[in-house]
């Protein structure tokens, strides 16, 4: 050991070699650890199958068929682990969303015909590579979680310009678009969506994550109208107005946009709605949904997500979020002065229960509802009558109307863009335009993909 250590200290090597050594060590150690796990898991699945078949009292012929089907699935899993995907494996059907750092397209996988949402993020707008890798690893953990509350991610790959995420397509659109159509929701509708979002947020908190970007455009609706969360971590904090330094030279003086403040709620709602779509695209953004402690030196915790939910609840009932203004600076001032600026317009009818819940969501973090656990939220009078254990199995508050599995009528129309135009003058071989997709890909996620020959259940519902 001493000799080796001595050799190491005197052994000259380039930084490139040092980097390759680190990669080799991590890759091989990780690989062999996972290899053993995968072996054990494969054997476990096989034994589970045998036990299940024995309990069902299947005939030998039927058992043989089930073993064969299982083996075919395992074989396919091995193939997927070798698969390298690129843009040309998908057919782009339509642009269904656009954000500050990329866009979302409806796509079809050419070899299987399956429909997905492809989220395209420009690398130039993103964080350092190491951070992206870390975020993707975190996302991979989340993808293993309960798919009921989180939009599923099936594949991810990259090329020189973009990072691509192949997601479950949710034909119901997002909450922002729904609110733009409906202006406001009833209290019963609001109760439904807030309840489901409480369960969704709690699910990710239990995994140790803070979403930190809860807002209507990140609440998606599946084919049956139920809520799923989107956008974990990847672009969190990227928008300028979501970062503390954006307000470095701004004091906490009271807001001064008197003319906007004195508008009646109807005109405020109209102004908000008019600017809403543009605001979602903006790389500057606005802190409308961000809890005040996120901007303070004191730090923040997962309770900041409940504040955001309170802001959304207010917007559902009133028609605009409580601190909206004409500039992000004014909104920031209002957020930081929430004690004075959080008010309910007298002309809009809102129940006392709803007001109380909003005020308990949008208060300082020490006193915020949820600080004592999610049961504290569930026990609030506004949620009277909510069947927390079965809300997802019941009909949604607002049914989704779609005619086919690739129906995009619940999305706005977007003009085509150049985000997918090929880089000019490229002479690289084809294989360099694809990326290994499945580092540490696990069987659990694979199961969501193996409904060959039939429409996946979440798409099948769309046909009904």
């Amino acid at each position: 050991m001493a000799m080796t250590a001595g050799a190491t200290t005197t052994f000259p090597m380039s930084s490139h070699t040092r980097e390759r050594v680190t990669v080799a060590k991590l890759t091989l150690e990780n690989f062999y650890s996972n290899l053993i796990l995968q072996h054990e898991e494969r054997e476990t699945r096989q034994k589970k199958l045998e036990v299940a078949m024995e309990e069902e009292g299947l005939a030998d012929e039927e058992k043989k068929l089930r073993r064969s089907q299982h083996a075919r699935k395992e074989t396919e899993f091995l193939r997927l682990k070798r698969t390298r995907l690129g843009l040309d494996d998908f057919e782009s059907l339509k642009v269904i969303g656009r954000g500050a750092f990329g866009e979302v397209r409806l796509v079809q996988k050419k070899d299987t015909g399956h429909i997905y949402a492809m989220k395209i993020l420009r690398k130039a707008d993103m964080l350092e590579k190491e951070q992206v890798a870390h975020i993707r690893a975190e996302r991979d953990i989340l993808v293993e979680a309960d798919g009921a509350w989180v939009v599923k991610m099936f594949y991810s790959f990259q090329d020189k310009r973009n990072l691509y995420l192949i997601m479950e397509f949710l034909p119901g659109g997002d909450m922002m678009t729904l609110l733009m159509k409906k202006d406001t929701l009833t209290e019963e509708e609001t109760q439904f969506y807030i309840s489901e979002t409480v369960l969704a947020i709690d699910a990710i908190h239990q995994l140790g994550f803070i979403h930190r970007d809860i807002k209507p455009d990140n609440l998606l609706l599946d084919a049956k109208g139920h809520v799923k969360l989107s956008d974990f971590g990847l672009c969190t904090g990227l928008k300028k107005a979501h970062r503390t330094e954006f307000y470095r030279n701004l004091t906490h003086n009271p807001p001064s946009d008197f003319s906007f403040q004195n508008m009646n709620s109807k005109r405020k709602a109209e102004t908000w709605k008019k600017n809403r779509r543009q605001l979602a695209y903006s790389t500057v953004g606005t802190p409308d949904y961000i809890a005040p402690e996120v901007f303070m030196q004191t730090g923040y915790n997962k309770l900041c997500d409940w504040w955001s939910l309170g802001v959304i609840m207010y917007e559902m009932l009133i028609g605009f979020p409580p601190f909206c203004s004409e500039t992000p600076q004014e909104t920031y001032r209002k957020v930081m002065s929430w004690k004075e600026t959080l008010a309910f317009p007298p002309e809009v009818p809102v129940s006392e229960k709803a007001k109380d819940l909003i005020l308990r969501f949008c208060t300082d973090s020490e006193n915020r509802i949820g600080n004592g656990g999610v049961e504290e939220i569930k026990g609030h009078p506004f949620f009277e009558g909510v069947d927390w254990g079965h809300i997802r199995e019941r009909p949604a508050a607002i049914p989704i109307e779609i005619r086919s599995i690739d129906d995009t009528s619940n999305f706005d129309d977007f003009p085509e863009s150049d985000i997918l135009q090929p880089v000019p003058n490229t002479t690289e071989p084809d294989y360099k335009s694809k990326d290994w997709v499945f580092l540490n890909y696990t069987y659990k996620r694979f199961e969501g993909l193996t409904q060959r020959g039939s429409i996946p259940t979440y798409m099948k519902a769309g046909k009904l």
Partner: protein
Amino acid sequence: MLVGKSKAKPNGKKPAAEEKKVYLEPEHTKSRITDFEFKELVVLPREIDLNEWLASNTTTFFHHINLQYSTISEFCTGETCQTMAVCNTQYYWYDERGKKVKCTAPQYVDFVMSSVQKLVTDEDVFPTKYGREFPSSFESLVKKICKYLFHVLGHIYWAHFKETLALELHGHLNTLYVHFILFAREFNLLDPKETAVMDDLTEVLCSSPGNSGATGDGASSGASGAQNHVKER
């Protein structure tokens, strides 16, 4: 000077050759990054498609051997390794037309990695699309790939084990070698005449996991995962 030195090294100089095999020393052969029993890991799982199993493992070995070589590629130059040598054997590259090409070790490795990369990313040879079949020549292509990868592993041991040791990657190299050899052996992918050059190392590495509790570990290897990440030096 170098040419002269090369000439002065006759093939039959066994004493000098034996002195060079640092990788055979017990303190190095017992180094591993996992103690799991590879014989069990390489066996074709029940009813899994054989070609898919071969494709999956071969692709992985290609990447890992390429990665292992990349750690010492700085030291494998046209000057230090004028031929692709493993012990007293020299390998020549044969191009598409069967012509024998004399080349340095780094050139040979580059030919190997380029041609294998081409094969494993060729959709007609290693299909990745749903429902596509493997070609009838698949097994012979896998054998060819394994032969080339074996040459690279052999060269790393023979010419660059000291650097690998200094980089503390010898446990990784040994683990990779054992896994590769046992896999190739399980499916008869390497001609014994082709691997004879490394038989002395193979015998030592593949006969035991590398610690004194081998028999005990072997008995419980099917059920145990607690030995992960054990490193010995």
